[in-house]
């Protein structure tokens, strides 16, 4: 078997006018000015995504911010089985279970906190959930905040979406 040899174009020597740079600089200035004028006149060349207003569409399997699901009657689907907390490698889920007033539900989460500062977005909680109560399909990152307390998402925050 022979090895194929490919000719690679080496950078050629600069011609004299090129080595003076001046002409090339003016050409370069033309390019940048062209871009600028184009972008001022027509905006479609602009790549910027105006982030909070316009959000990138995440691929469907993107693991984003968690949300807790509700039953048809509006109560949280979570039964506080602790499977997610058990599966969580970052130990970021804190659940306090309680006796639900609805005997058909029996157990419900009095507290369901996810410490977003600890979460590693691995999705194991979603895998572990036997009730499909927790999902990470919001397509949304954890929004930044200015205190640690605000980044511990409580059950109300997680049920919002």
């Amino acid at each position, binding site marked *: 078997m022979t090895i194929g040899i490919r000719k690679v174009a080496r950078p050629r020597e600069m011609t004299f006018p090129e080595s003076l740079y001046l002409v090339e600089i003016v050409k370069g200035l033309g390019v940048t000015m062209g871009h600028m004028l184009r972008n001022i006149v027509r905006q479609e060349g602009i790549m910027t995504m105006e982030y909070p207003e316009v959000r990138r569409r995440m691929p469907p399997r993107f693991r984003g911010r968690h949300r807790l699901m509700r039953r048809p009657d509006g109560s949280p689907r979570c039964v506080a*089985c602790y499977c997610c907390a058990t599966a969580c490698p970052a130990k970021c889920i804190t659940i306090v279970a309680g006796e639900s007033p609805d005997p058909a539900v029996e157990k419900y989460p009095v507290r369901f906190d996810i410490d977003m500062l600890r979460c590693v977005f691995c999705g194991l909680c979603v895998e572990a959930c036997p009730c499909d109560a927790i999902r990470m399909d919001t397509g949304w990152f954890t929004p930044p905040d200015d205190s640690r307390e605000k980044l511990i998402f409580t059950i109300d925050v997680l049920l919002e979406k």
Partner: protein
Amino acid sequence: MPSLTIDGKAVDVPVGTTIINAAEKIGIEIPRYCYHKHLSVAGNCRMCLVEVEKFPKLQTACSTVVTDGMVVRTDTEKVRKAVTGVLEFLLINHPIDCPICDQAGECELQNYYMKFGLHKSRFALEDKVRKKKVQDIGGQIVLDAERCILCSRCVRFLEEVTGTRELQFFRRGDHSEISVFPGRPLNNNYTGNLADICPVGALTSKDFRFKCRVWFLKAFPSVCTGCARGCNVEAFFKGDILYRYKPRVNEAVNRAWMCDFGRLEYKKANNARLLVPFVREDGREKMMSWGGLLPQVAYRLKDAVEREGPDAAAVIASPQSSNEELYLVRRIASDLLGTKNLAFTSRVPGDGFSDGFLIRGDKNPNSRGAQLLRIPGGPAFDELVVKIAAGKVRALLLFGDVLGDLTQEETAGLLSMVPFVAQAGTNEGPVSAVATAVLPIASVAERGGTFTNHAGRVQRFHAGFPPRGKAKDTIGFLTSLANRLGAGWAFDGEASVFRALAATEGPFAGMSYESIGSLGQEAKG
């Protein structure tokens, strides 16, 4: 002695042994639901089927008594198929609500399903028989009839152990369920055991309900401090919180049971704990460090002895303390302070209820130990109280959270007669409300040692986790206090104290932690 082979292994067992116990002896575990070692044999769950040579059908291992030359196989395809079939039947009407079931994690249905079943349900969900869930049937028990597999362990327990017979089967076939009679809830002091013996989640503890998933819990062997019986328990904890006690099998003390009062004893290690040393100055509590408070306590005790003679100091020991601690307390009182004022609070607050089974009238785990260690109780304690009330005691070192059977007002009145009261206790109580200096010590789950129960049985309890807050191990506290009083002790941990104790104290002579083991050892005398 009949000898038989189980799965090719030969074993000799006494006459009358059943296959299930013979197999256990050589480490073969035969699945079971209805069989319980401390209850009679029912043979109704059919999980323990094994193949016995020359028997045409499979036999229940729990009820078949071994004969010489018997050849038993538990691992054949036939056995496996039979057990899997039984399991599938049991699961037909089971609600599979493991996410909310407290038994999940220690459920025999789960375990055997993972071992033998792993099948898909062939029964339509809507055809399942629904029964009543979440029934408060009294005692410490919540009943979920749906989860029940009708093994009858609970029925037999109430018949054979407590003799109260509250639970019984009702109805027939698919609709059979377990329940109490109308208007007759569980009414005995041993209901908690039902949750333990129930192999599934039908009977669960009301107290432990939804507190914690069992797989987060770690356990260590301990002894119940609720009464002088000293039931052996398994203490379950997560972090530095105790979640429950479960009885640990000890045929000589509590067999496999414990009372409902003892089950709640764990709460003392969690709630109303003394966690920071403090002194009370002009009615206000002032936080202190151990390094700041200990010398003060030592100084006040020494000062009282030096100024007004050894009997101006007094030491009240606690029967809640371990043998090791009591031994050190006695040595501090008699050797270092030289005082005759030493007694332990043998009186018990409350009615001193007892029954003929496990519950003892003496609600302290170690009164017997105090007696064996020559600390006077009873009348001696009353004399000491009189002395204190007469204002003859200038400095008092006091162990425990209550002062015998004295009420809060009596305690406050008595202790107000002493200028300096140092309390070493675990929980807030009548003493800590008035003591001059409060030294928080480790709870029973945070320190190790031995208790001597009413019958003189010395039993070990272990430290499960380090002391909470600023609480200190009692041995360490007593050693440093003694050294400040000029002792020069070098005790390091309870084991070294016990060695010294066993060497000098007659009743404990020849004992060691090894000989005590996990089940205890009788003291002499």
